[in-house]
């Protein structure tokens, strides 16, 4: 009996080490559980805002590294961790999932997906941006085009299903989205002439429940926006995690550039539904509405940015809105129930459009198309912002966006589709020497700049805001830093020694607020050190 008591006590003491169930009911109310980080952007609305208040403008200067985890494989480290029930799930290139103890960064298990020697990564390096969790399974998309379910407790593979063929340039880098009874995943391959789609899979079996293509085929509405049969290699990749409104039961998914990227001559027309946001019925995948940010895009301005769902007062009326800073340099406010265009404003230097008209269509300026000799246009190919997550704070009403201020000469070349080869038709020459970056705070209703925190180069780091009045982000030069959410004043910084190309998250470890972000080849966790104790030795 005494022994059994001891065993029981041990289990209790290790209680946080046991992976628990993460049902949909927990994820859908994630805002009420800020000690965990349950989905890619923290909550389904994509706000990447935490209500944790332990870290404030007064004490953030005391933040120090708690631990560092070194990543193994080659490629780009762009992981956005999930933290729940005493586990942190990070991903590493090429397609590796590792469960860490968030208290000290120790590895509990690691799943490494072997990659074929002829892996086709067309237009991006090996990377993975994170997992999804639902019940007791962790889901990851693989670079070779599969969706894989792993046991959250042990890392054992429960099932895998082929999403698409990598031989034709299909690949998965994004974190899947777990909703009620569905694992939703998109696809990369926008530079390989694929035909994009969003898929939903059964969480327990991996059976495909629906697929919605982003480019119509002959006979379908929208195909008239593609000259000839150019829709066949029309791209419209779906390579970044979408947002979800559980009340409207709508998924909001950004779509990428039309193919080929820079030569629009062979695909005259608006090229629906590329460079758009699609509102999809979560049960059926049926498109409820779409909004095309960049009709007939010829600059590779994917709309694969985070579509944030926020409830805003617009024109004296409470509106359920979708707000986003698009790669094309404009900030948009849409009605997320109907797709109605409400407002747009440039938030970064752009030279391609006079403005956005009353219906939301850009008024494109002449001589901004790519050309044989090169056409100078702002922003550059990677856009005024890109996949790194912005943040919206309901407390400040500000939309915090990582900005890339850079122009490029855009070139157009001849191009023919060949399966599994780049299908791009041109490229850019960047004006890198004069380029710079920023974390920019926009008034979420208008897109007007409220403050600007300048960076030496165009940012690849996401942004996190907290109810402690803080904004966290990183830089290409290795800094991780905290800003005052109201003013943009720098309050804390740490030099990690590696490029920050990921999204920060925050959570509690044994009641203490931590912030984690990857930089270079490592995942860092930061916390205010505990007061000194009398315990000797390194054990905290």
């Amino acid at each position, binding site marked *: 009996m005494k022994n059994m008591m001891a065993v029981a006590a041990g289990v209790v003491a290790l209680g946080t080490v046991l992976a628990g169930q993460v049902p949909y009911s927990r994820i859908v109310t994630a805002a009420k559980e800020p000690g965990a980080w349950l989905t890619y952007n923290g909550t389904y609305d994509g706000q990447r805002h935490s209500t944790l208040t332990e870290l404030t403008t007064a004490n953030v200067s005391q933040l120090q590294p708690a631990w560092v985890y070194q990543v193994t494989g080659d490629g780009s480290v762009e992981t956005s961790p999930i933290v729940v029930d005493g586990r942190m799930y990070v991903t590493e290139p090429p397609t590796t999932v590792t469960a860490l103890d968030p208290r000290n960064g120790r590895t509990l298990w690691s799943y490494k997906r072997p990659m074929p020697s002829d892996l086709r990564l*067309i237009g991006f390096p090996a990377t993975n941006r994170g997992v999804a969790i639902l019940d007791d399974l962790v889901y990851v998309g693989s670079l070779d085009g599969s969706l894989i379910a792993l046991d959250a407790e042990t890392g054992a593979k429960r099932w895998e299903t082929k999403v698409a063929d990598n031989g034709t340039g299909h690949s998965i880098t994004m974190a899947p989205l777990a909703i009620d009874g569905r694992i939703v995943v998109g696809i990369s391959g926008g530079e390989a002439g694929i035909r994009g789609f969003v898929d939903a899979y059964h969480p327990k079996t991996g059976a495909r429940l629906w697929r919605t293509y982003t480019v119509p085929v002959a006979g379908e509405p929208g195909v008239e926006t593609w000259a000839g049969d150019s829709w066949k290699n029309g791209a419209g990749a779906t390579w970044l995690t979408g947002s979800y409104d559980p009340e409207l039961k709508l998924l909001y998914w950004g779509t990428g550039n039309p193919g080929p990227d820079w030569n629009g001559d062979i695909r005259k027309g608006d090229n629906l539904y590329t460079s758009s946001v699609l509102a999809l019925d979560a049960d059926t995948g049926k498109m409820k509405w779409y909004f095309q940010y960049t009709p007939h895009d010829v600059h590779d301005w994917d709309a694969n940015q985070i579509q944030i769902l926020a409830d805003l007062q617009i024109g004296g009326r409470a509106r359920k809105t979708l707000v986003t800073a698009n790669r094309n340099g404009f900030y948009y406010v849409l009605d997320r129930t109907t797709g109605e265009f409400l407002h747009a404003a440039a938030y970064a230097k752009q030279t391609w459009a006079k403005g956005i008209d009353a219906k939301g269509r850009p008024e494109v300026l002449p001589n901004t198309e790519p050309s044989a000799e090169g056409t100078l246009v702002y922003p550059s190919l990677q856009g005024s912002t890109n996949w790194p997550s912005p943040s919206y704070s309901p407390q400040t009403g500000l939309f915090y966006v990582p900005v890339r201020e850079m122009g490029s000469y855009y070139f157009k070349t001849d191009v023919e589709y060949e399966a599994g080869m780049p299908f791009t038709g041109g*490229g850019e020459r960047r004006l890198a020497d004069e380029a710079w970056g920023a974390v920019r705070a926009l008034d979420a209703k208008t897109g007007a700049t409220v403050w600007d925190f300048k960076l030496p180069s165009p940012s690849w780091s996401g942004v996190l805001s907290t109810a402690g009045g803080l904004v966290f982000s990183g830089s290409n030069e290795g800094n991780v830093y905290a800003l005052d959410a109201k003013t943009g004043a720098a309050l804390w910084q740490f030099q990690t020694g590696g490029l920050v190309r990921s999204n920060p998250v925050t959570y509690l470890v044994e009641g203490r607020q931590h912030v984690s972000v990857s930089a270079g080849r490592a995942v860092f966790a930061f916390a205010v050190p505990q007061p000194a104790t009398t315990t000797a030795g390194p054990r905290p």
Partner: protein
Amino acid sequence: MLQPSSAVERRAARIASTRRALAAALAWALGIGVIGNARAQSPPDIRPLHEADAADLAAGKRLYAAQCALCHGMDGSGGYGPSLLLPVLARAADDGGLLKVVDQGIPNLMPAYGNANGPRRTWQLAAYVRSLGAGSAATVVPGDAGRGKVLYQERGCAACHVLDGTGRAFGPDLSSIGAQRGPGYIKQALLEPSARVPEGHVVVTAKPKDAGSVRGVRISEDVFWVYVRDPAGRVHRYWKSDLEALEREAGASLMPSYGPQRSATEVDDLVAYLSGLRGQR
């Protein structure tokens, strides 16, 4: 019925032949003799990359635009992938290394198009990539290298450049500049230095709120700190919010132009000398 010449078998045979040809090309480029031969026989279309002619480079350029520009930029100045205009490429320091990367890619970083391109097009593509950093295809250098060597000493180039370990390290090391840059590039750098600013030599002016301005080369910068080396070689470190302004001069160079006060012959002599520098890297 079996199809002995099925598409699959033809493809397999093509790949095998591609692999053999490329292995021979790589062996040749690396200076390794082909087994069984007393002397290595170079395949007909495999020569050192700098010997590519205009037609080869034009073919390479088309392949580059289709397959490489996406990540490395139309002119090789970089994008999602690194710049290819650097004097020495980290993963492709010599012909063999470059051919290998272009043929086989880099696991988890760069795709392999060698099988799709075949050995000749792979060689043309590698030659074009090599030409990007050199600035121009090899041309005849009209000057006198011997006189150029004397001029290098007399004109004080060593006040800012290291050559074989000697000189002051303010500008780039020139010990192997002839292997890294073509004569056209070197000549332009002498006459119009601001047109050829090497990476890592961005000119900035730091204006502290409480001290005099410093104009020099930015040797390091992050969000909060900047380090500037002034022309006297002193390094100044600034906390950026202590500065009234930090001006970056895109396309500026601190090197004086060699043009206005020198004869054309003198410039050619110096180009001839520098083009012959192929010392240790």
